[in-house]
């Protein structure tokens, strides 16, 4: 009796939370097929039954009426997120390996302090950096440019890459590197030929986190660009005025979160493998 009741309770909670998780997506999905009639008459949920579905919202994403041209911001976001994540991943993986294997001493600072410097960058509120970033990019002529955004995003993503990778490297026994070096590998050789292939799960998790935080950042893209280098979240939020039709808003929201949701389902098996919180000790 008791286990059965417990099982029922368990699945109810799981389903309840699942409903909460998917509710905004379902609402956006149904709204994206509405027209004015379907919105202003009060909330409706089921197409055909409650309202006549239309593709107006989705058409508006590609230059249709009442919408935006989403293609350019989309490509911008892909370029900036992709480049910044790739660079951060390379630099972060190298730095994390170094910190995990060698002893450094920079003045009074040792490994733990250098690691703390990397990770502590996440404490920095974006607003603290926004004003100087603005002036710095203006000085370099990189305001409203993809290159400028990539530079800024490296500062955001590099700490994440170091944070995820150091734990993976710490869990790979040092003897493996030592064996490789006894076999005549240089430290670089040991790293690239032996360690790196073994850290693929870590690299996938680190890369995913870089992509999440890069793709989803809004504030820097918002303050450091105007029109040319506009990124996707900025383009969507620009629609967030009282006159914007909900169907365009919903369609643009769905299409901009879709890629990462798909990636989540693809790399699920790697995600829960890394003991990320355990790295902060």
């Amino acid at each position: 009796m008791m286990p059965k009741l417990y099982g029922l309770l368990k699945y109810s909670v799981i389903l309840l939370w699942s409903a909460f998780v998917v509710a905004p997506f379902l609402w956006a999905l149904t709204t994206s097929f509405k027209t004015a009639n379907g919105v202003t008459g009060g909330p409706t949920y089921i197409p055909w039954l409650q309202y006549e579905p239309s593709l107006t919202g989705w058409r508006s994403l590609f230059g249709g009426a009442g919408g935006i041209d989403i293609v350019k911001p989309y490509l911008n976001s892909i370029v900036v997120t992709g480049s910044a994540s790739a660079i951060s991943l390379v630099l972060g993986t190298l730095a994390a390996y170094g910190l995990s294997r060698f002893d450094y001493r920079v003045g009074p600072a040792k490994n733990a302090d250098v690691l703390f410097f990397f990770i502590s960058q996440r404490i920095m509120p974006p607003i603290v950096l926004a004003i100087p970033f603005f002036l710095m990019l203006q000085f370099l002529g990189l305001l409203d440019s993809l290159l400028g955004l990539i530079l800024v995003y490296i500062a955001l993503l590099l700490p994440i890459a170091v944070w995820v990778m150091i734990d993976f490297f710490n869990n790979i026994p040092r003897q493996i590197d030592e064996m490789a070096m006894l076999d005549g590998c240089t430290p670089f050789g040991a790293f690239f030929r032996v360690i790196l292939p073994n850290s693929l799960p870590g690299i996938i998790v680190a890369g995913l986190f870089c992509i999440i935080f890069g793709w989803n950042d809004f504030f820097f893209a918002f303050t450091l660009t105007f029109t040319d280098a506009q990124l996707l979240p900025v383009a969507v939020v620009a629609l967030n005025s009282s006159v914007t039709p909900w169907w365009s808003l919903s369609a643009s929201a769905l299409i901009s979160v879709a890629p990462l949701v798909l990636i989540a389902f693809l790399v699920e098996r790697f995600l829960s493998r890394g003991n990320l919180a355990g790295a902060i000790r």
Partner: protein
Amino acid sequence: MNGSGFRAYKLAFLLPGLLILLAIILFPLIFTIRVSFSSWDAITPGLNNAGGINYAKLFGDVRYWQSLGRLSLMAVGTVLLQYLLGLGLALLVWREVKLRRFFRVLFLVPMMTTPVVMSVVWRTIFHESLGPANDLLGMVGLGPFQWLTSASTAIVSVMIVEVWQWTPFMFLLLLAGLLSLPREPYLAAAIDGAGPIRTFFNVTLPLLAPVSIGALIIRLIEASKIMETVYVLTSGGPGTATETTGYYIYIRGLRDFEIGYASALSITYLVIMIVALTIIAKLLVKVFIGERT
């Protein structure tokens, strides 16, 4: 493999990342500190020397201190909720559950989505007459609520969105922690005849303590920066009811262009956050680990 050759390898690993981060972060930080001692604003832009006038001014800035209080409340409140929910959910899909891999990904989905973009959707959900929130709650006899237009509910609405967005991150960290727990203590507890509740408090929770502390701190760090959801959902309103510190500084700095004053506010904000988070981290270690010894 000793000597200068080895040293070169050592540096080649660490230096590129370290130098680039220093170059991108350090200049802006030093610059902000310098600007905070100037009276740079829209009328007289430029670096002059105004001494500590901005810092003197911020002590009497009620709106700033209120925003900090509000931010602390929202950050601690949402993170605690996220921890309880995340831990509960992680425990639910940790072991024998049908479709558990599907639910594990599903629970992670909100974290993958862009906070501002989903906030745009949430804003339509919270619409008082045209949104589904009041409509659906009305069916079970609740509401209607003024989700975004009344001071006390607006802050709850922002917190609901924050919990929706970030419980998955807490869930992910705690689930990974649970999956890496050793099996032996559970066998021992089973042999002792401990029930599920005693096993949870005597085995799972203590073993999970380091991960719990890490997860809480990581989320508190991120929550101490709440402003984007506020910007989209309420623009800090009604009045200043949902204005967080980051958003207030944004208004003073990048909208009113009081660069000098905003810089002083941000440096103070940063220092307060570092001090507060350090103290909280120490307290968490005491709460989770201190009790056992």
